[in-house]
């Protein structure tokens, strides 16, 4: 792949096939932590960090453990264990070495284990048979797309506080409808990359 191909690849992963709005991964924290801008940015940064790291680790596990030993059918169990222990490890290391960053991202880390975007991206990396560099680029770009959607959504949701909302739509219901329109807007990017 040349440089131009990588650019298209990144635009595709961030905007066109946004993991949150087009592939429906990681919707629970999307609706959960998007009520305020600062929590949304914190969560986005934690997600970018963990998805890239987890993508690399699960890729190595797949090609250096699961395939040589012919135990690909245990992929799901291995991957979720790798992700869970990785998140725990990152939490401990961060707490000791970069306490500032830990204070900013720490509370989001435990939530990330059950964010299906992490396991989802790890599985997509394997399904699409990416090599190591493609995998890193795809994981990072997908996570950035997730963060982008999350922050934009939080910005919209902060305005809800000032609006008069019908009682039955309060909370998640209106959040979902709004996400639908955001998804519609994002699907407009499909013209950027021809596929």
């Amino acid at each position, binding site marked *: 792949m040349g440089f131009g191909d990588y650019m298209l690849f990144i635009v595709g992963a961030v905007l066109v096939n946004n993991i949150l*709005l*087009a*592939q*429906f*991964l*990681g*919707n*629970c924290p999307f*609706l959960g932590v998007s009520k305020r801008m600062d929590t949304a940015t914190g969560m986005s940064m934690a997600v970018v960090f963990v998805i890239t790291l987890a993508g690399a680790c699960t890729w190595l596990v797949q090609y250096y453990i699961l395939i040589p030993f012919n135990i690909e*059918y*245990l*992929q*799901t*169990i291995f*991957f*979720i*264990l790798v992700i*869970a*222990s990785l998140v725990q490890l990152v939490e401990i290391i961060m707490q000791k070495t970069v306490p500032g960053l830990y204070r900013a991202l720490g509370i989001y880390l435990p939530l990330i*284990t*059950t*964010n*299906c975007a*992490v*396991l*989802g991206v790890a*599985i*997509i990396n394997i*399904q699409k048979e990416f090599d190591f560099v493609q995998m890193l680029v795809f994981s990072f770009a997908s996570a950035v797309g997730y963060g982008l959607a999350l922050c934009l959504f939080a910005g919209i949701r902060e305005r809800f506080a000032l609006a008069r909302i*019908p*009682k*039955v*739509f*309060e909370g*998640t*219901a*209106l*959040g*979902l*409808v*709004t*996400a*639908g*329109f955001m*998804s*519609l807007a994002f*699907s407009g990017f499909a013209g950027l990359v021809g596929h």
Partner: protein
Amino acid sequence: MSLMKEFTKGFWELLPPFRLVLGLCPTLAVTTSAENGLGMGLATAFVLACSNMLISALRKIIPSKVRIAAFIVVVATFVVVVELTMQAYFYALYVKLGIFIPLIVVNCIPLGRAEAFASSNGVLASGADGLGIGLGFAISLFSLGTIREIFGAGTFWGVHVMWSGYEPMAFLLKAPGAFVCLGLMLAAINLISARQAKRKLEAARLAAAQA
């Protein structure tokens, strides 16, 4: 009698994903047809019922510090069972649901029920709870899939049901339609429960007035 109560609460009181707002990803992603929705729902129900029973049986052995990791391993085991079974007997459905079958592991419903119910209740009660909530989830996914399939493609279970001149609303089958449709359904359910609560309150007031 209480077993029955644990079983039926999943159908309305804790109906996922509406009352218990968990497990949104598969709800949004696979409900493009009634068949996909039902398949996903039943797969989740199986995992949920089995993992709830096993976790409840092991609840005195699992140390509370590592319980989340232990729960994840139990859930992941049953997910692999479902994955391999579906690969063997329902291959077409397996391909259609794709990545969302392994992702049942991180569907928050099994973990949520393990934490909230199975880790402090008996095996039978946990089984009833898991089966009830799981079937509730299957019913929700089936209804959402039915609505999206009928209006979005004009078919039900692959058979044409709308009149011949009907122009399908393809929007509903696309990603934005999933969000909007689920949001509207949630609002409808909020409306029904608000009405119910009001009626109950009025009945109580009436009873109090009579007494």
